[in-house]
């Protein structure tokens, strides 16, 4: 399936892909593992996933053409 990726802040600086073709990955936990392997920097950062604009708290199945947002916390003021 193909999914859309949106990332913010320091994550967007190294995770630049917009579309992702997934073969073996089916859910958000699988996606996290995949992304952290592709982008080891992610492992050192706290981030939250949102699936189709809803925050993800537990492992959730992905669907074709869904949108995943990857959001880090900001502290600046």
């Amino acid at each position, binding site marked *: 399936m193909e999914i859309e990726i949106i990332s913010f*802040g320091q994550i967007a600086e190294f995770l630049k892909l917009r579309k992702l073709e997934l073969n073996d990955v089916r859910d958000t936990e699988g996606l996290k593992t995949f992304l952290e392997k592709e982008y080891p920097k992610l492992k050192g950062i706290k981030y939250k996933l949102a699936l189709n604009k809803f925050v993800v708290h537990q492992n959730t199945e992905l669907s074709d053409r869904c949108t995943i947002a990857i959001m880090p916390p900001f502290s600046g003021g």
Partner: protein
Amino acid sequence: MNSERYHRQLILKGFGEAAQQKLALARVLVIGAGGLGCPALQYLSAAGLGHIGIVDDDVVSLSNLHRQILYTTADIGKFKVEVAAQRLREQNPEIEVKTYLLRLERNIILDLLKAYDYILDGTDNFESRYLINDACSLLKKPLIFAAVSGYEGQLAVFNVADQANNTTNYRDLFPIPPQEGEVLNCSENGVLGVLPGIIGTMQAAEVIKLITGIGTPLVNKILNYNLLNHQFYEIRISHADDTYTIPETEAKFLAMSKPIYGNKIINIDGEEFDALRKRESTLLIDVRESHEFPVLDPAVFLKAPMSGFPASLNQEVVEENIVLICQHGIRSVAAAEWLKEKYGSSKHIYSLNGGIVKWSGHFIDQEHER
């Protein structure tokens, strides 16, 4: 109340005298009179927000002025709360401005928040943000949250019930505070001055919407804004069960201690150093400057001079063990502490006690001719 002052908003459809009266009676506490706090304060005061409290313990500095436009060059060195209060009173003498020249601590925050109806978080660090979040959650105070980084901002309204009577707070997004150094702040990462201007102004707009009941505030949503392309991206927040606890009584809140990250680094001697070098998944980092002797084999020792640390370490560490070395074992401790803050207990971080000078025999095979 001088109706001419507020004429342009009084004639707005859906606003009028009733909304203006609500603003006049409202009590808002703005925490942090910096990049976010300044624009929020200016618009809240101008709009006729009746009772404004300002919390800050900092003085105006030159590097503040590109984004904190409440202050002038002549204000450098003065307390922000005092300058801000004076400007706001000049701008609108009809409102009450109270100043709190202090840094919010656990033992005073609850009493302070109780005196206000809406809390605006304009702070610049996670420790304050989590303290404010937890206190607001405990007291069920509406919290207007905003934060910026680089060219991007985040904005959300917490502890306000939606139509299904659900409330959320910041810990529903990030249950555990990031460690110091994990997320860069504005002084490290930079910020375009106009960005907190935009986001802080949006915070003021959310406060006004909540008080007067107009529009749809960002209740249980976080808005991500990107200044470079004007992209707005809203994410719906729901309660995260069992990922965190916020104390449900004031006594428990007061008893909470600061998070402990286990900042212990391990000082090693020459023998332990030799043993570690043979281990798998070990990264050796030399934090000395390029002019220092002996020069070690760059294929074995990653160079990350302390003068530019941590930027000089321009890679993420994937190894499990990190050994830091320098000439005398002092700079290596500082670098190790920084990495410990960043990686926490996920990695073993060591510093060679006494440095290369003390254990020179252990480096002979690694020395390179210049």
